[in-house]
């Protein structure tokens, strides 16, 4: 077990931190589930943090000069390299603390990026930082496509989804590949902590982020982030959709602590995936056959996950 977790009692709904590390006035779309997730991440971390942000929606909407929504130190360099920038920050602070040039007090280093920045273009940088063992946490805010550039498909776009580069047509039904399992790639690096989270389950999300920060060495949290603009869903339904994704087993919540899988929320009476799919315009072209396939595959993936958890 991880010793740093012993003292952490967990966040309670009654005593959530009031302080907003991310201010109002950011330019996110109405009902943005990603900025909501980011807000929860920051609440969990508190103000002793340095944020390294990959290029993407969150970077754009929080920092149009001369305005910043950030109340904590924040740096953006480029798209694919947030994990490497974080490696540099972490190493710098390590040597500066050793030399007595900065206070010894621990500061969390957060690298944050979208699914494209994480699972596609930035994979190598993340792999390098994980393998080297820097003490930082990487948070992926997964809205399942390149939203900032106009909803192009990514490796994390789910099967069948319509995007501007996976359009359904006479010879296509949308995204033809199954969603890339980025948390499993993180797990393969033998890092001490990996988790998935959803803003609908805010306490679970905040506790996981806090644990990821507490653990020594690299940690990875993959957060489902509804995007009304890119998914063609109603803004007010963002949290509901995030909840449905968990209840239908489309996006299961789990932790992998030192390689051991633990299901955070076991879905014993799953809702049919169709209920989830019909909340979003990106799936509306799918016929019964495709929906059946998705249901079968979701069930199979969930079974795989259960087996991984049972192995312990």
């Amino acid at each position, binding site marked *: 077990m991880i010793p740093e977790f012993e003292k952490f009692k967990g966040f309670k709904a009654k005593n959530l931190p009031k302080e907003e590390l991310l201010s109002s006035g950011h330019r996110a779309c109405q009902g943005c589930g990603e900025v909501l997730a980011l807000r929860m991440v920051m609440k969990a971390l508190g*103000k*002793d*943090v*340095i944020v*390294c942000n990959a290029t993407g929606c969150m*970077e*754009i909407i929080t*920092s*149009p*000069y*001369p305005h*910043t929504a*950030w*109340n*904590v*130190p*924040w*740096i*953006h*360099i*480029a798209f*694919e*390299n947030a994990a*490497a*920038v*974080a*490696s*540099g*920050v*972490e*190493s*710098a*602070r*390590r*040597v*500066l603390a*050793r*030399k007595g*040039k*900065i206070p010894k007090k621990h*500061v969390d280093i957060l690298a944050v990026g979208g699914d494209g920045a994480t699972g596609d273009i930035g994979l*190598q*940088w993340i*792999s*390098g930082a994980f*393998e*080297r063992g820097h003490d930082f946490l990487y948070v992926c805010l997964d809205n399942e496509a390149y939203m900032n550039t106009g909803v192009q498909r990514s490796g994390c776009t789910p099967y069948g989804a319509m995007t501007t580069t996976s359009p359904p047509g006479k010879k296509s039904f949308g995204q033809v590949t199954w969603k890339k399992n980025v948390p499993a790639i993180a797990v393969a690096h033998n890092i001490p902590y990996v988790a998935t989270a959803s803003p609908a389950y805010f306490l679970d999300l905040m506790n996981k982020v806090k644990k990821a920060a507490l653990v020594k060495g690299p940690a990875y949290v993959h957060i489902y982030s509804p995007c009304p603009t890119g998914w063609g869903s109603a803004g007010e339904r963002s949290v509901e959709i995030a909840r449905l994704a968990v209840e239908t087993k489309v996006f299961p919540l789990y932790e992998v602590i030192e390689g051991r899988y633990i299901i955070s929320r076991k879905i014993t009476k799953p809702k049919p995936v169709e209920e989830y799919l019909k909340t979003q315009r990106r799936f509306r072209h799918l016929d019964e056959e495709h929906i059946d396939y998705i249901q079968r595959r979701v069930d199979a993936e969930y079974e795989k996950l259960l087996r991984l958890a049972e192995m312990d």
Partner: protein
Amino acid sequence: MSKRVGIEVSIAIAEAVGLARAEVIPAYPITPQTHIVEHLSEMVANGELDAEFIPVESEHAAMSCCCGSSAAGARTFTSSSAQGLSLMSEILYIPSTMRLPMVMVVANRAMSAPISIWNDHQDIMVQRDIGWIQTFAENGQEAVDLTLHAFRVAEDRNVSLPFIVNIDGFTLSHVIEPIELPDQEDVDKFLPPFKPRYKLDPRRPITMGPVGIPEVYTEAKVAHDMAMRKAKRYILKAWDEFAEIFGRKYNPVESYRTEDAEILLVTMGSISETAMTAVDAMRDDGQKVGLLRIRLWRPFPSQEFRKAIGKAKVLAVVDRCLPPGAVCGPVGAEIRSLLYKIPGAPKIFSFVAGLGGRDVTVARFKEIVDKARQFAKKRPRELYEVIGVREK
């Protein structure tokens, strides 16, 4: 006491980085830069240098780590070459406009294809406009001295810009030369601890690297350009201070036997040593030939260069880079535009030589001077000439 030792130039550069007390060194190996970072890694492993050596997974990551490290307030060093430098390219533009000081030694090497590990200046010329201060070293001593100078200037709060010291791959990086390694005490006197104007610090949160909307972008870039122009003053000042402490004086443009010279060779980097030998030989033959060596490439020392020309009638500019389809090599183009329509300006001829490790011999320099003299009488058809290329 400083000591004069016979030492490989790469090792000497690493020693200089150690004397500078670099704190974070992210690096990825590429020939011919390897000996520099290997030696640094060894110094850290042996506890001779209290630093974090980050063995990154690519040069792009190296430069990304450098940005994070400098922004967090640590003295930052890396080194690269050719393909590696190009892999960094996307990031190189960023720390300069963000005013993040760091020092990189580039062991200059040819760009693929065909793949070549040998020396020319194509790698750095591709990165000409990244907004870093750039110097070129001629010999091992200078490589060491310019590395120390680079830290001093880059971190000066009036400058606060990243800095590249160019050394020729192999012809400089891998040779053993007698080099005077300065005292730690003197280096400490010359190079105060890094105190950045702004850094990532939870006690004083700032936002670094925001979005530049069209109302802002031009001003941000002009501010960077003005900072580069202003930097020249501090580059010169640091060289003066360097001379006071270490007794070696450097100038942005070095003149060799230029008094009464009619034809001047213009070079950068280690071929200048051969060029001096060639000048001596031609002088012995009674030819009025001299040499201008550009040490400071960015910001370009326009005033100093114009002054250094003196009364010369012909400039033979040697580029170690061949940009296909361009008017001429980049140094040639720079000098042509610097002197364009200036009354009494010399005629300028552009030569390309020494690509991919090909030697530029004394004979080649003589050939260049002969051609320049010929061209001065009869204007050549092309605006540049490649020296020493076989046709069949």
